[in-house]
């Protein structure tokens, strides 16, 4: 089928310092990923088109972008899911550096803010694993799936307005530890998030959950964190 592809272009170096769109008519298979279309353009039409990608099957988090106005991974959206007219744009709310490439530093800085690591130096005497029941493990399973793709954070109205808001991804990663029975720094993380720039910046707009390619219940995780704070 013939696909009409509109791609956002921006490259200050090449004089394209105003965002514009390039359009291509591409012969595509309904099973093709949007990433395949971009690869086609880059390989055979215009090599200067830039975007990030690696795994090509939705597990590395490189290629989150706006596809027909909604955040998704280009490698997880098939042509047949979006139809003949496809528009791709960079994530909203992070500075655009070139074409689909945005500056991810603010995103990772927010991630680092919430102490995204296990705090617990007690090791069982026999040197083996700490025990954790399947139920305790299940408590935070959902939020361990995050691949830090930023699709959620950049779909959030609170983040668009205020990039100091840590964003859903950071809260998801805090949640992963707060509810891990082995961790000892839950309260510290709750205190970090106990603010407008933390969990209370969330207005339950739910875009994050709809955008998450890992189908994490993002809003639910945020609600659980809020509850833990006010409890």
């Amino acid at each position, binding site marked *: 089928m013939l696909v009409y592809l509109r791609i956002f272009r921006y490259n200050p170096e090449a004089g394209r310092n105003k965002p514009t769109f390039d359009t291509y008519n591409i012969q595509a298979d309904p099973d093709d990923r949007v990433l395949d279309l971009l690869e086609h353009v880059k390989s055979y039409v215009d090599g200067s088109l830039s975007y990030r990608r690696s795994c090509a099957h939705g597990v590395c988090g490189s290629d989150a972008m706006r596809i027909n106005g909604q955040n998704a991974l280009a490698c997880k959206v098939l042509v047949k899911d979006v139809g003949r007219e496809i528009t791709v744009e960079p994530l909203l709310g992070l500075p655009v550096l070139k074409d689909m490439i945005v500056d991810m530093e603010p995103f990772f800085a927010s991630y680092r803010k919430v102490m995204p690591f296990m705090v617990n130096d007690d090791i069982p005497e026999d040197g083996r694993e700490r025990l954790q029941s399947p139920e305790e493990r299940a408590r935070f399973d959902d939020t361990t799936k995050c691949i830090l793709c930023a699709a959620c954070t950049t779909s959030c*109205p*609170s983040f668009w*307005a*205020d990039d*100091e808001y840590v964003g859903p991804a950071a809260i998801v990663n805090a949640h992963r530890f707060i509810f891990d029975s082995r961790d000892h720094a*839950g*309260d510290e993380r*709750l*205190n970090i998030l*106990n*603010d*407008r720039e*933390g969990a*209370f910046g969330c*207005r339950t707009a739910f875009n994050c959950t709809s955008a998450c390619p890992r189908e994490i219940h993002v809003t639910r995780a945020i609600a659980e964190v*809020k509850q*833990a*704070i*006010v*409890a």
Partner: protein
Amino acid sequence: MTQKVQKTYESVAWKWMRYSGILLIPLAWIHVLIQDVIVGVHAIDIDYVALRWANIGWQAYDFFLLAFTFAHGMNGLRQVLFDFVHGERARKAWSVALFIFWLLVSIIGTIALVKGARPELA
């Protein structure tokens, strides 16, 4: 988990918005239902207001309505504003301004409510 999580303005505000909101359902809806829908502006004049406030029950009702609705709404406005006003100092300034505005309007409303309408001067 032993809780050592501090209360912050935002965490209290979060609870406040929810619980006050729930309370506002009867408060605001009954008010709107009676005044706007059933009675209607054409039937409302200063005598009507005077009559209503002569009843201590309605006076109290309107006082709670004023207190809860306006505080809820002003905090809501603060939340929206803070989306767009960044930086500690600017936010502080806005908070103070909003607070003063809230206090002023609340006082005006309360005085009117307590002292009652003066149809004889109309």
